């Protein structure tokens, strides 16, 4: 007899085919790589055709500025990691506030979360730039508070609000029976939260948290508007230094896009991978 699983004409009787979760796979499909390559070639090619013979070629110009632009990009990454860290710590605190038994704390946390979650990131950034002092005194010493740090704090505000919602959502997504079981075993609310509820939430919070990080990373270019020397600012300066040649615009900005893509795409893939993994295991 054949070892095939039982098959029937009635769809409901057939075994469910789950999408099998394999290892984390970063590869692009060939056509996706092709599209990216074509876009790069096209922008560069068009630019190349527009170049005067007296000027240096697009490729040479790009090559010349690449190290500086890459440094700028690293600055973006630093800002994103810092903003994410600050936003996560503050967001977890507000998120726990949102599920507190203290009505006042719960209402305040809810309000703070909703306020910063529903504000444009750029406006928050401007607020941080203009409201934060340029230096703070710590133990009598004046510690400078540079623009990039202000921008980082400005960007961490919406992150904070979103993390707060992620925490609240994850806690509420757990079956209520977990609370009841812990309660009937004599755990205090605090013990239940830290020993039973939150450890289970970490898994659930990972995909939205990483998603948020990717969005934040892409939003770091907003800092260019307030004058932080990150990649967009530097690209603008490099273009100006090259005499404002219009044929350089597309290749330079394509390069910027490419850097962000190379950095954010694996995060997006990893997020999808985690979502699939957790969906199967429950």
């Amino acid at each position, binding site marked *: 007899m054949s070892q095939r699983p039982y098959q029937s004409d009635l769809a409901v009787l057939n075994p469910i085919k789950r999408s099998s979760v394999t290892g984390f796979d970063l590869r692009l499909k060939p056509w996706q790589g092709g599209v990216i390559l074509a876009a790069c070639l096209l922008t560069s090619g068009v630019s190349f055709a527009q170049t005067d013979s007296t000027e240096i070629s697009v490729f040479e110009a790009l090559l010349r500025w690449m190290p500086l632009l890459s440094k700028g990009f690293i600055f973006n990454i630093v800002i994103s990691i810092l903003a994410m860290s600050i936003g996560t710590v503050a967001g977890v605190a507000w998120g726990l506030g949102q599920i507190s038994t203290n009505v006042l704390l719960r209402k305040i946390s809810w309000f703070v979360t909703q306020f910063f979650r529903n504000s444009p990131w750029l406006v928050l950034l401007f607020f941080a730039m203009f409201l934060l002092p340029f230096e703070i005194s710590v133990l009598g010493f004046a510690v400078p508070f540079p623009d990039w740090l202000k921008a980082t704090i400005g960007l961490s505000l919406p992150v904070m609000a979103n993390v707060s919602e992620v925490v609240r959502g994850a806690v509420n997504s757990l079956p209520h029976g977990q609370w009841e079981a812990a309660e*009937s075993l004599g755990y205090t609310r605090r013990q239940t939260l830290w*020993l039973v509820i939150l450890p289970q939430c970490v898994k659930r919070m990972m995909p939205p948290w990483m998603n948020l990080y990717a969005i934040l990373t892409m939003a770091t270019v907003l800092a260019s508007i307030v004058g932080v020397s990150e990649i967009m600012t530097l690209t603008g300066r490099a273009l100006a230094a090259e005499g404002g040649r219009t044929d350089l615009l597309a290749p330079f900005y394509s390069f910027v896009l490419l850097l962000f893509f190379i950095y954010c795409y694996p995060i997006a893939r990893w997020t999808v991978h985690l979502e699939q993994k957790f969906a199967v295991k429950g």
Partner: protein
Amino acid sequence: MTWTDDQPMVSIRDVYKSFGDLEVLKGVSLDVMKGEVICIIGPSGSGKSTLIRCVNALNDIQKGSILVEGLEVNSPDLNKLELRKKVGMVFQQYNLFPHKTAIENVMMAPIRVLKQDRVKAEAAARVLIKKVRLEGKEDAYPGELSGGQQQRVAIARSLAMTPDVMLFDEVTAALDPETVGEVLQTIKDLAEDGITCILVTHEMGFAREVADHIYFTDGGVIVEHGPPKSFFNKAKDPRTKEFLSQIL
């Protein structure tokens, strides 16, 4: 007033409970003596689960008194920890902590709540796992166990707190038919060990076999009660008769 074990271990007096406008319990009274096994049966929505959740203070009551070893549950200054040390509860949906192994589920509360020594708690947990016949499954996660096995871990977890009364809230209702038996056997073992048990169940055969006393609830009141023999054979109330005729 100190409690002595010739008094009821659990004494429920004229309990009223409503959720909003919905009256769930309308004056329920019953007593459970030490070592007794009682079963509460009745149609869905008759308030039987609510009743035993009230014993554990998972639900509060509007009126009446619930005494557990002399401890008044319906009191604003109830020491919940003291109550929970006396009362263990097992749920329909097991509610094991999925991120902890079977043995961790069992030993966590003694360590964290009773502040027991870890080594001692683990040794006790192993004995309990053995008692519910799950030797070899100590390091399995709940997701790797069958429903019946999970429910037995949940029973062991509850027993680890050395409660005097065990509450079972339809503990076999979510199980596959073939695993119901193993859970009922575990409860039967407990009953034979003399642990006081209050069960809400739909397993009539089981109730007849292990219960000392059976209570039938309908519409938030106890309609009829008695020892299994007379209850199942000589039910007087028409509602009891109708229920039994449907279910047996």
